[in-house]
């Protein structure tokens, strides 16, 4: 602090009164993230990882990758209106789902249908929003998955409120909320983290830093040392993890979930990953990034990383590898078949769920639409 004046020497009879006592409200040191993203695969800690867990992660990643390619294919066939792919980010998606207990809640963004599927949601229901036949294709209470959220970061305060409510009711339920690097610039990100820390809410914030908010790179999004550093300002720990290392992501998220469950409060996790595909099928990534950059990240592929580890330790034989592949193909075939059927829609549903009880005005408008539909049917 070279610009700060030194404390004035006592001169004559003038005795300046000292300011009231001040001390930092929290020690910031334990909140700081590591200097580098935490890794397990390819490091010494890998030997300590549970083989059963690694195999489960592997099977989920293979399935997840196939889900991504199938969903993207469905956009080309006109069966999905749009698909924001999580190709390359499967480790984050799967780790988020697996870090939670059944009673916990997941708060996904629109790019996180895979996390919902990995948690047990029917892929067709997960894709309802993106097919366009309704906004949310599932009952959120069934798997405790909040509706896929489109307005960025606005689901984060919901996760905080739900976790807070669960604690007030005496339930040891944790909420895990997912957001992207772009979403951290939104006001709701700030307000959610602040409320969570003040309330010590059992919530985990997972930021998937995939490098881009559509076309805008992280450098134009923030000047923070890392997104994980933002945690310190709220008084919660920030954790930085290699988001393509499924074992590391699972470790960090599980630890944060346990900490939340035990009353330790919220954690902000930044998972460093990369969006291999364009923002959606409607986007053209060649306008804002080089193929060479994409290739660098393809070389750090989450499935290849885990497969390498499992092979080296002799945990993955050909039968197991084929089994994972077959399960993934089965998911894709089922998804293809069911998505190729036209959904049966009732336009009258448009009026059914606006209010608990339909207003007079909506009854009138529903009658108008019904008459139009009847006239259409007669033609």
């Amino acid at each position, binding site marked *: 602090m070279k610009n700060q004046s030194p404390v004035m020497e006592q001169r004559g009879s003038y005795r300046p009164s000292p300011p009231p006592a001040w001390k930092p409200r929290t020690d910031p040191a334990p909140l700081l993230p590591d200097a580098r993203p935490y890794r397990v695969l390819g490091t010494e800690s890998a030997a300590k990882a549970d083989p059963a867990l690694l195999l489960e992660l592997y099977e989920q990643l293979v399935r997840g990758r196939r889900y991504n390619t199938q969903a993207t294919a469905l956009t080309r066939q006109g069966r999905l209106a749009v698909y924001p792919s999580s190709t390359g980010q499967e480790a984050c998606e799967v780790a988020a789902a697996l870090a939670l207990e059944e009673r916990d809640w997941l708060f996904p963004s629109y790019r996180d249908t895979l996390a919902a599927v990995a948690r047990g949601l029917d892929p067709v229901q997960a894709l309802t929003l993106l097919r366009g036949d309704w906004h*949310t294709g599932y009952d959120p209470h069934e798997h405790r998955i*909040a509706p896929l959220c489109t307005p960025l970061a*606005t689901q*984060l305060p919901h996760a905080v409120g739900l976790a807070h*409510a669960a604690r007030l009711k005496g339930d040891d339920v944790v909420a895990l909320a997912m957001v992207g690097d772009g979403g951290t610039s939104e*006001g709701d990100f700030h307000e959610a983290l602040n409320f969570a820390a003040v309330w010590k809410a059992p919530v985990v914030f997972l930021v998937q830093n995939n490098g881009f908010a559509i076309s805008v790179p992280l450098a134009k999004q923030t000047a923070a040392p890392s997104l994980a550093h933002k945690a310190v300002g709220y008084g919660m720990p920030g954790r930085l993890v290699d988001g393509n290392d499924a074992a590391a992501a699972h470790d960090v998220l599980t630890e944060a979930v346990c900490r939340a469950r035990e009353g330790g409060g919220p954690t902000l996790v930044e998972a460093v990953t990369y969006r291999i595909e364009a923002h959606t099928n409607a986007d053209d990534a060649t306008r804002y990034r080089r193929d060479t950059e994409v290739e660098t990240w393809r070389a750090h592929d989450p499935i290849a990383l885990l497969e390498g580890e499992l092979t080296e330790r002799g945990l993955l034989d050909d039968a197991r590898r084929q089994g994972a592949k077959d399960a993934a193909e089965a998911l894709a075939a089922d998804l293809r078949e069911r998505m190729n059927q036209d959904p049966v829609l009732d336009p009258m*549903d448009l009026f*059914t769920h*606006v209010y*608990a009880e339909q207003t007079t005005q909506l009854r009138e408008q529903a009658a108008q639409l019904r008459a139009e539909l009847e006239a259409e049917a007669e033609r």
Partner: protein
Amino acid sequence: MTTVADKPSTTAVKPASMAQALQRALRDSLAADPSVHVMGEDVGPLGGVFRITDGLTKEFGEDRCTDTPLAEAGILGTAVGMAMYGLRPVVEMQFDAFAYPAFEQLISHVARMRNRTKGAMPLPITIRVPYGGGIGGVEHHSDSSEAYYMATPGLHVVTPATVADAYGLLRASIASDDPVVFLEPKRLYWSKDSWNPDAPASVEPIGRAVVRRTGRSATLITYGPSVPVCLEAAEAAREEGWELEVVDLRSLVPFDDATVCDSVRRTGRAVVVHESGGFGGPGSEIAARVTERCFHHLEAPVLRVAGFDIPYPPPMLERHHLPGVDRILDAVARLQWEGDS
């Protein structure tokens, strides 16, 4: 649906303010239902800047009446999550214009969640908003923001004008399984009426207008802070030979077409009165609805007496903006009376 407000019984009735009735409604709701939670800025030991939550933290604890961080989007956003988990949050926005940061949560989530999830995830949230002018507030403390809320499907928009309604409508709003924007006319907070706080009247259902004063010459359609002004205008109109009927809407959404149209068909003339600006304001919708439904009964176009289409004025000029008795009577005079040339 048309009901003339009952005269309250005179036994054990004493003057009570709207603020007291609102406080009592919150207290009774908290006592009746453990899932009700009050939250907002300064609602704790201070009791809110208008003292509506006075004593609630002391009586029900900090978990039931909670001082939140100062962030309206965060307050409403966390209330959404609490409602997802089965609680019934009652959120206080400190002033009309301070509710704007919460608009995204309100419009993108609160209003839509039931519809988005086909009824699986209703959000029973009450959002209390002190609104309107006439209290000498400086900038950002006197907005009439009801048109924004009315234009958002999925919300109920309710506003009381009397002490008894303040209690009954707030209880009904908190009990509603839909989100309710509960607009409290802040210049009526200290208005008093005969009301028995020990035996509050039964809870009024949301969505019913009430005829506050009967008359056969013309109908004044109004709500919230403009109701007493219209009643005063109706009294003054007797000198001109007009008997004005005053309809207090109480609920802007759902809108009680039946009560309004029943009155207008009888009187044949209507003026809509509100503080909110006229252009794109509630009166535009009301005048259109009345015209569409009562055209053959109308002797004159439906007129509007509204605030001017200007940013809310500084306090020393606000009296020129707010619809007053004279402006209302001027409008009534323009309703093409027999003998007019």
